[in-house]
């Protein structure tokens, strides 16, 4: 039973901040994934929670108790390390039993618990081996076992799957999710792999350069990224971001750039409302975000000159083309293909079900539904939402940090 609260934690190395004022409230039984690129401070934050390093500022609470100054062993947390950190001189059984022996649990009880855990993790046949005699996957399970055996309040895991091959990783992912469901314990899980984050998490916290960019359910961070960083980090390929300007035309807001003219489905300026002879959003520098799977191919033709001409019936559903450019390369992923297109000065990726009949060198016209467009402030990178009379940057404070 552990609710873990991180209050304004900062960790400095010299002058640089590895973790910069992060606050999190992790409810009991939650599976929180700390996600971010390499070097963003995920491990540092996790190790501060574990008690392996002291935060320079801020507090850490477990179940409301301030544990900032309590050593790791007093926090009732277990940790699985990226390198597994198994004790090379001990057998599997003694590795798993180590935390219990350190706590002076009676020998018979240790043996019983080790046998139970080995049963759960399918390690019973390996109990007498040394770590060096195990495969990577088996070592990983022993590391899990060593965490499980104590029945701690929360599990901390630092990229526990990154040393496994792709197939094993998928299998272990399912196992850990299953484990979380069965134990009902709090999990804090560090990864830079968005697939792990999307599939395992109940909530995802995205970190960038030591700062918390966004926290929310996997669906929220994917569908409503709070910043251009989150948008560009999630998804493979990630969201397309195009520099554009806001223009009002026919009472409709458009994002406009060379070869780009995207209606945003936002009605502005009911008659008489515009002050100063125009609306305040006009000319504002933004970044327009559209996910590759939300770009629809209205036409792709060889030769020069793209046209609106509807040579396929689908144009009806997809609406008028809003982005025009040429296809640079096409990647075949089996079930679908990714077309890399040059539009204006930017490269835009389009995901389409195969066969989409896209060929490198062709001209392409794309459309997107207004509800699939995202706007970000070009300077701050924060998400813009439409409020009553003008787009407003979501202040960082409004990014929900609690549930």
């Amino acid at each position: 039973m552990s609710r873990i609260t991180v209050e304004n934690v900062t960790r400095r190395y010299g002058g640089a901040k590895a973790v910069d004022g992060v606050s999190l409230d992790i409810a009991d039984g939650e599976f929180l994934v700390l996600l971010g690129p390499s070097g963003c401070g995920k491990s540092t934050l996790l190790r501060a929670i574990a008690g392996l390093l002291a935060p320079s500022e801020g507090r850490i609470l477990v179940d409301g108790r301030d544990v900032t100054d309590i050593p790791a062993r007093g926090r009732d947390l277990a940790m699985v390390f990226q390198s597994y950190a198994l004790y090379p001189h001990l057998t599997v059984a003694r590795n798993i039993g180590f935390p219990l022996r350190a706590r002076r649990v009676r020998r018979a009880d240790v043996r019983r618990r080790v046998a139970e855990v080995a049963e759960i993790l399918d390690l019973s046949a390996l109990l007498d081996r040394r770590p060096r005699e195990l495969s990577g996957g088996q070592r990983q399970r022993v590391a899990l076992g060593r965490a499980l055996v104590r029945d701690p309040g929360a599990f901390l895991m630092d990229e526990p799957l990154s040393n496994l091959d792709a197939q094993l990783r998928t299998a272990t992912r399912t196992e850990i999710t299953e484990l979380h469901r069965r134990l009902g314990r709090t999990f804090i899980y560090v990864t830079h792999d968005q697939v792990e984050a999307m599939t395992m998490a109940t909530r995802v916290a995205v970190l960038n350069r030591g700062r918390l960019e966004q926290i929310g359910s996997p669906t929220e961070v994917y569908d409503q990224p709070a910043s251009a960083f989150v948008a560009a980090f999630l998804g493979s390929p990630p969201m397309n971001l195009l520099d554009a300007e806001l223009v009002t035309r026919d009472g409709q807001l458009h994002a406009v750039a060379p070869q780009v003219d995207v209606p945003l489905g936002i009605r502005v300026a009911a008659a008489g409302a515009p002050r100063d002879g125009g609306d305040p959003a006009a000319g504002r520098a933004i970044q327009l975000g559209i996910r590759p799977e939300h770009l629809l191919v209205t036409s792709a033709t060889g030769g020069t000159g793209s046209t609106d001409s509807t040579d396929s019936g689908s144009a009806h559903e997809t609406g008028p083309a809003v982005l025009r450019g040429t296809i640079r390369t096409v990647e075949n992923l089996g079930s679908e293909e990714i077309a890399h297109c040059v539009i204006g000065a930017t490269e835009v990726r389009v995901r389409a079900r195969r066969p989409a009949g896209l060929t490198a060198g062709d001209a392409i016209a794309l459309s997107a539904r207004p509800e699939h467009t995202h706007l970000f402030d070009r300077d701050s990178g924060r998400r813009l939402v439409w409020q009553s009379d003008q787009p407003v940057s979501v202040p960082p404070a409004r990014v929900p940090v609690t549930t």
Partner: protein
Amino acid sequence: MALAIEGPTAEQAVLEPVAAIAAADGDDIPGGRSRVMTVVGHVTLALLGLACVFPIYWMYATSLRRPDDVYKTSVLPWPLSVGSYRDALDELDLARLLLNTTMVAALTALGQLLTSILAAYAFAVWNFPLKRLLYLAFVGTWLVPFQVTMLPNYVLLHQLGLLNTLTGVIVPNLVSALGVLLLRQHFDSFPKELLEAARIDGRSSWSTLWTVVVPNLRAALSALAILLFVNAWNEYFWPAMVLQRDNSVLQLGINSFLNSTEVEAWGPLTAAAGLACLPIFALYLALQRQVINGFVRSGLR
């Protein structure tokens, strides 16, 4: 109509192993060195080995000659005789000397090992103010010649009334800067995640040292222990100073053959020296694997 299998048939699909064989058949040995170089290397090593072994062989050969033949230079000591050994045993209370020397060497080495482990662990794992300075000072003591500390130590022992005791020989040598230096290298390269895992698993720093670090560095520690033991075993000058009036360790006993008699008694001398070497040989034989591991590899994984 029959269904045909597309693509290469089994016969065509067989890989041709010829290329691999041809590559292995070349003049070069894997690793890129030619045979000539290997031979030259081995011969050089063999000669060096011989040069190292020869004095030891000569010592035993001399000790086994008849007392009259001691100055002969035939390679094989013939006829054999244990006369020199009898003389040596008559002259010296060899059992007592061996026991004393073993005790001095073992206690010194053990003490040095223990202090080295604690100091090196502190330097490698803990952060504390003035750590660098302290470490430099520590290592610096290694550079101070024995002659500089010899007199102050001697005076101190005199004041403490420890002259002519084995304690006096051991206590001033309980810390070895060399040991700290060598062990710190090993402790520094010890995987930090293992230490952190032990912390999470509930071990204090002290019990982490004994349950995780030391068992995993057994090889390095054995190597160091042997080094320290041999050093202490061969120590001559310091015991000679402290135990002036009492030939109570082997090295002093051996020396008495050179000083006490008019004629230099090479036979008993080599016999005693040969006996003095035996415990060291035994130690090496017993711990050979650890020594090689400790010196050649870091010993972990």
